[in-house]
């Protein structure tokens, strides 16, 4: 079952991009989709999925070849994310967090030495990456970070707690933010650090139980007087806030792609069902009440895809893309909630049952309205970019 939406390709993808999309689609359909339901039910980390993705080189899609990645562009990463999310939201979130947040900060801001040491194991999937920004008292207001790094001989000592760290209990590498100068202006207080899991003092305080993306790993992590050598300060001291704002711009396109994939996954099932399920003597798709829902879903999915691919292409072209990334993420994630809610409605009672997958996708999609900047934060980013600071 191919999405008719993609049969007409208005996006002029390159042959390489198409091959990546089609390969990941086959892989996701044949390998990830059959495992999705049980992973969701058990809530176990999708380690086999991660290993299988690593074997295909999906754990380092946008990482340059020089550091062990595939060296593909952002749009290729987006296409892969979309296809993975169609099959399994938890796996898509795992890959997004590993790539955009756990690996790309080092690629973008790391020293040559840091890149050589830490990026290749992440790109090959040998090591899983995790990113720590959010804290108990610092969510959307991430500038309110309290985790502190104090300068000591030969490096830093980090003290604090991070919330909602995706992949944390299975990760071998953490990128986290900490205050290095509390007296500096707000945006110069924070620095970013690279921490190896083996550094003494790092402990997983709690593995969270969640509404959706249940197989994705989400933890509270304590950093208790963790010694971090000087060589593991990421980029420049005091630039942490600026770094993570940039990292989130890129990450948002990935989360948008996850929302898009989830919506498409539900939509495909919905189309199939509306052709084969009959009521009142006709396939339900022949009733306008259902047919119009299908039309509305298709329009919204296609609109989200245009926004996302456009944002990805701006990033690939090295042009500013902050506003477009926020727009794409905001629209795609809210779209996914609307589309999946309607998709459940089209299937009626069956849609509400776990057997038909859409209820899982609906729960998974809610994450996209919250993670890597809530919908409200996206509206702040977009409006500030449009209006300036009034």
């Amino acid at each position, binding site marked *: *079952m*191919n999405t008719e939406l993609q*049969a007409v390709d208005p996006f002029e993808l390159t*042959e*390489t991009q198409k*091959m*990546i999309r089609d*390969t990941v689609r*086959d*892989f996701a359909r044949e390998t990830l989709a059959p495992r999705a339901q049980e992973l969701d039910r058990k809530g176990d980390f999708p380690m086999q999925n991660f290993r299988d993705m690593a*074997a*295909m*080189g*999906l754990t*380092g*899609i946008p990482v340059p*070849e020089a550091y062990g990645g*595939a*060296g*593909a562009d952002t749009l290729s990463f987006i296409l892969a994310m979309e296809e993975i999310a169609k099959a399994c939201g938890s796996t898509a979130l795992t890959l997004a967090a590993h790539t955009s947040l756990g690996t790309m900060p080092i690629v973008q801001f790391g020293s040559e030495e840091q890149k050589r040491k830490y990026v290749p194991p992440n790109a090959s999937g040998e090591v899983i990456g995790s990113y720590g920004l959010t804290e108990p008292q610092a969510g959307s207001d991430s500038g309110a970070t309290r985790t502190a790094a104090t300068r000591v001989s030969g490096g830093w000592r980090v003290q604090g707690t991070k919330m909602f760290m995706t992949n944390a209990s299975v990760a071998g590498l953490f990128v986290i933010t900490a205050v290095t100068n509390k007296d500096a202006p707000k945006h110069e207080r924070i620095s970013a650090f690279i921490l190896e899991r083996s550094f003494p003092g790092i402990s997983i305080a709690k593995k969270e139980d969640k509404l959706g993306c249940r197989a994705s790993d989400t933890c509270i992590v304590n950093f208790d007087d963790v010694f971090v050598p000087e060589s593991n300060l990421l980029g420049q001291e005091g630039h942490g806030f600026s770094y993570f704002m940039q990292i989130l711009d890129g990450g948002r396109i990935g989360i948008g792609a996850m929302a898009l994939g989830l919506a498409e996954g539900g939509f495909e099932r919905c189309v199939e069902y509306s052709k084969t399920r009959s009521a009142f003597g006709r396939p339900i798709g022949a009733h306008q009440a259902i047919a119009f829902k299908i039309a509305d879903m298709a329009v919204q999915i296609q609109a989200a895809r245009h926004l996302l691919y456009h944002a990805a292409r701006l990033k690939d072209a090295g042009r500013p893309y902050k506003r477009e990334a926020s727009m794409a993420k905001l629209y795609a994630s809210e779209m996914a909630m609307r589309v999946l809610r309607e998709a459940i409605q089209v299937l009626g009672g069956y849609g509400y049952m776990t057997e038909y997958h859409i209820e899982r996708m609906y729960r998974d999609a809610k994450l996209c309205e919250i993670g890597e900047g809530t919908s409200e934060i996206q509206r702040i980013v977009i409006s500030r970019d449009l209006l300036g600071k009034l």
Partner: protein
Amino acid sequence: MILAVCIKRVPDTNARPQVAPDGKSINPQGIEWVINPYDEFAIEEALRLKEKAGTGEVVGVSVDPDGNESILRKALAMGVDRGILVKGGSMFDGAVTAELLAGVLKNVKADLILFGKQAVDSDSYQVPSLVAHHLGLPRANVVTKLEIQGTKAVCRRQIEGNEELLELSTPCIVSCQKGLNEPRYPSLKGIMAAKKKPLEVLEAPPIEARIEILKMEPPPPRPPGRIVGKGREAVPELVRLLREEAKVI
């Protein structure tokens, strides 16, 4: 060791091809083209043999009337080292395909030439054997296990109720059956590397067609099911029909 793999572009097995308005060809609209699934076993086997040997070259060869490169690119993404595309021939004339392939393979000088056992569109099963004839090489068809021992290819194939063991001296031809291996997905690095690998496009020399397609039509619609009766009493009639009409028992 040089390994040649012959592959064909066929409609996706999920596609429902329609006859084109000329009544003699398939309407290409809306069809996704894929590597013939049996040829994927041949590609995988060649890659594994090369990996096991630690050296060698895998050459993909395809005859395509439209000169479409897509499946050879995918083969390159899977790990094939270089491709040769012969533009010409027809999708259904196996004799022409075999002659064109033989012409190319003569120069490749492969130690082993691998095929899928059949193409899933034309289903004629003839090309591997015809190529073997043209090149004067031994061949084993429908092989489920293959091992290279020096200059011998040891092949196993399923036959009625048993297994046949064949020993061929290389160079030789082997056509591959499901069960031989599990074809890999192209890796991302493979896909990125595929566009940089050499793909030679040759114009096919004129060869007289052996087959003329006069007409194509879809298979007749399946007759609707029939209820022969109810309960116990219906069983004898059901058995009779299954035996005499459906010929399944």
